[in-house]
């Protein structure tokens, strides 16, 4: 798992602004806590003033003769009409990976400038957005202010937020909401026609816009409808993104598109484009219990890391303390619950008591506020109990309250538990913390740019500097909307001055689909079975050693165990006929999960303080000198593991000097 980061590379990445080594650089780790003289999120990128030669295809002219894809105006760098030379290679001006709010919002805007492909690994609505049911925060009340929203955000973020990012998001939020309404999203309002704004924890003002209890779903619905009606946008569902297509142009890494696996047809489809937006969401499934749907396997973060993009703040994983623990239900659900059922604070607020399985009330030991302590304190306390006692869940008991009140206030919990043989008016509810949101991700500048030319990011996959060490409630949909919109202008500018060399489609080796024919029936099923098991084991390691309460010893153990697990898995694959470029959905997700898990562990090891969501028993306090983001630079191409290397190689015969 060791990665090689040379000082030479560092200076190459950050040409402007000075970089010096932070205090927590580790030789054998991917990450180093670099500090920057100026805000790290403002570091200009070396490519920002020009377009590398590779993208100016002087020799071949725009298009090969057999393909009539030149726009009517015959402008040399005009928009590509969507071209399919073969079903296995497609050309679009813009490729969007992910169909949540960030991806769709961006797609709708850039579709006014060129052709767009939206790639999504399941049904288009299957995204974290769709499960984001609270609301979107924005300053929409005259008595509210951008400064107040900013302040709330930065306090929640434990002051690790980038102030300029926070200002931009809080300022532009209201306009983004209005646009959504204009696009047909329907939010709750009052009799007088005003938007109904709620006030959520951490906000000092009413500012949450919402649609009953399904805000994310409503936004997703409105955007998807607009996308499906847009003739310039093609949606490719059940297309799993495998790896980005990149190459080096001098000091810059340039992105040319992405290889995907069409899951339904079991074939590889290559997308070449001038601009790529990564909006692939979160990575909840590196943990065993998560609110995220199954698609959230950290694909984007992993692909970006393999493509040499800088990753930031991965240690800040948001957990909810009390998700319904299926293991504690008398009748276990027949199929594993896809996303966790979170039990509201209100149960504790109304008098619910937490017990461990020894029926000891433990909260008073940790905090004098007991069950009414802040959520992060409760989460750490539960985590500590579970680790100390080596148990799988704790109990939340509300049964001492009047039956009618329980059923009136918490009918959803009551019915869900009753379905599984538990009566919450008589018995305690089994609960366990669940992973919910990744505050970190692919480092984005103020317009969603990354250090890879042609690659932009928005949404949960990005680390924009908004959330800092902890996300403020309802700020994630907002961040996605704002950054998706902000990425439009630089994307469009880049698209307009880019010529895509269509003959370069075979510059990279193609992934090959694993089939029963190529590997043998038995081998393929063994691999899939092992992969499922390895995924479970990885999740257990992450929960046990990289959970809510961390320590250097535990993190080192995690690093070692993950490396062993990865080696064991990869060895099995490669000993049974798997090769570098072979792909299958389960295996590709697994390599992404490994990659993300390692990013989280490395980042957690690099932060020698406790701040926000990251808590270390050996560094339990906040350290002002450590109030800087954690940065992970790309690893050397010679790194051994399959999860850390891009699948495709560049064919040596196509290294042409443009």
């Amino acid at each position, binding site marked *: 798992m060791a990665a090689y980061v040379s000082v030479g590379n560092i200076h190459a990445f950050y040409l402007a602004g000075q970089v010096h080594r932070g205090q927590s650089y580790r030789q054998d780790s991917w990450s180093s806590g670099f500090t920057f003289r100026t805000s790290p999120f403002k570091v200009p990128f070396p490519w920002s003033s020009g377009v590398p030669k590779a993208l100016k295809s002087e020799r071949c002219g725009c298009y090969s003769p057999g393909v009539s894809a030149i726009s009517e105006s015959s402008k040399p760098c005009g928009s590509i009409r969507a071209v399919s030379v073969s079903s296995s290679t497609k050309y679009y001006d813009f490729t969007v990976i992910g169909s949540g709010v960030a991806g769709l919002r961006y797609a709708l805007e850039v579709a006014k400038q060129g052709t767009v492909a939206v790639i999504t690994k399941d049904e288009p609505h299957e995204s974290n957005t769709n499960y*984001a*049911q*609270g*609301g979107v925060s924005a300053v929409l*009340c005259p*008595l*509210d202010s951008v400064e*107040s929203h900013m302040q*709330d955000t930065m*306090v*929640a973020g*434990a002051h690790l937020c980038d102030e300029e990012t926070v200002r931009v998001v809080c*300022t532009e939020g*209201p306009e983004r909401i*209005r646009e959504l309404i204009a696009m047909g999203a*329907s939010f*709750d*309002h*009052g*009799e*007088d026609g*005003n*938007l*109904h*704004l*709620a*006030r*959520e*924890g*951490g906000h000092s003002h009413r500012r*949450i816009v*919402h649609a*009953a*209890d399904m805000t994310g779903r409503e936004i997703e619905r409105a955007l998807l409808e607009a996308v499906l009606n847009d003739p310039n946008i093609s949606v490719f569902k059940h297309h799993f993104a495998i790896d980005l297509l990149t190459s080096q142009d001098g000091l810059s890494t340039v992105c040319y598109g992405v290889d995907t696996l069409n899951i339904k047809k079991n074939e590889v489809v290559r997308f070449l484009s001038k601009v790529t937006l990564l909006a692939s969401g979160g990575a909840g499934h590196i943990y065993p219990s998560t609110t995220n749907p199954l698609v959230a396997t950290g694909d984007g973060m992993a692909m970006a890391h393999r493509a040499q993009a800088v990753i930031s703040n991965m240690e800040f994983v948001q957990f*909810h303390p009390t998700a319904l623990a299926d293991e504690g239900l008398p009748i276990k659900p027949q199929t594993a619950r896809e996303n966790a*059922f*979170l*039990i509201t*604070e*209100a149960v504790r*607020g109304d008098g619910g008591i937490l017990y461990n399985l020894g029926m000891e009330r433990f909260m008073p030991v*940790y*905090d004098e506020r007991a069950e009414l*302590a*802040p*959520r*992060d*304190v409760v989460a750490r306390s539960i985590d*500590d109990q579970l680790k100390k006692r080596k148990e799988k869940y704790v109990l939340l008991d509300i049964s001492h309250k009047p039956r009618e009140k329980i059923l*009136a*206030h*918490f*009918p*959803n*919990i009551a019915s869900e538990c009753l379905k599984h043989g538990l009566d919450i008016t008589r018995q305690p509810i089994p609960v366990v913390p669940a992973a919910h949101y990744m505050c970190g991700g692919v480092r984005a500048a103020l317009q969603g740019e990354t250090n890879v030319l042609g690659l932009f990011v928005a949404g949960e996959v990005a680390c924009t500097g908004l959330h800092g060490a902890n996300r403020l*409630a309802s700020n994630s949909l907002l961040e996605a909307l704002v950054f998706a919109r902000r990425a439009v202008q630089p994307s469009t500018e880049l698209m307009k001055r880019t010529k895509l060399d269509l003959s370069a489609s075979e510059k990279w080796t193609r992934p090959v689909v694993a089939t029963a024919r190529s590997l043998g029936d038995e081998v393929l099923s063994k691999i899939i079975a092992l992969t499922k098991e390895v995924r479970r084991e990885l999740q257990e390691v992450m929960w046990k050693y990289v959970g809510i309460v961390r320590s250097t010893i535990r993190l080192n153990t995690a690093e070692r165990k993950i490396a062993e697990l990865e080696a064991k898995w990869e060895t099995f694959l490669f000993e049974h006929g798997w090769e570098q470029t072979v792909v299958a959905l389960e295996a590709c997700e697994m390599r992404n999960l490994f990659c993300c898990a390692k990013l989280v562990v490395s980042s957690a090891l690099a932060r020698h303080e406790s*701040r*926000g969501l990251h808590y270390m028993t050996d560094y*339990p*306090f906040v350290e002002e000198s450590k109030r800087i983001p954690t940065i992970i630079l790309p690893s050397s191409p010679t790194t051994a593991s399959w999860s850390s290397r891009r699948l495709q190689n560049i064919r040596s015969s196509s290294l042409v000097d443009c």
Partner: protein
Amino acid sequence: MATNKIVRLIAPSGSVVSARFLEPVSRFFSSGTPPPPQAQSPTPNQDNVKPDQNLQEKEEEEEEGGEEFMNKDTGEIGGPRGPEPTRYGDWEQRGRCSDF
């Protein structure tokens, strides 16, 4: 944008948060977030939005939608029934938390 020009009349009540955040830790765990607010009854008129013209027109158009639940305390139409979803800080409905 209109909202940028609006003068802020009320200081944020979040000032208690910063003090708490910087408190020395006497217990095993430090706390970085404020305690959940007291159970509060909804205050319908306090922060009622006066949106700009476009928004209001749009809302008025949408109002004619069919039979929707109207919350008598807050005046909210189409919203959740029962107690205020954010009364304890997170966003809950009927016991299930969907945002925090």
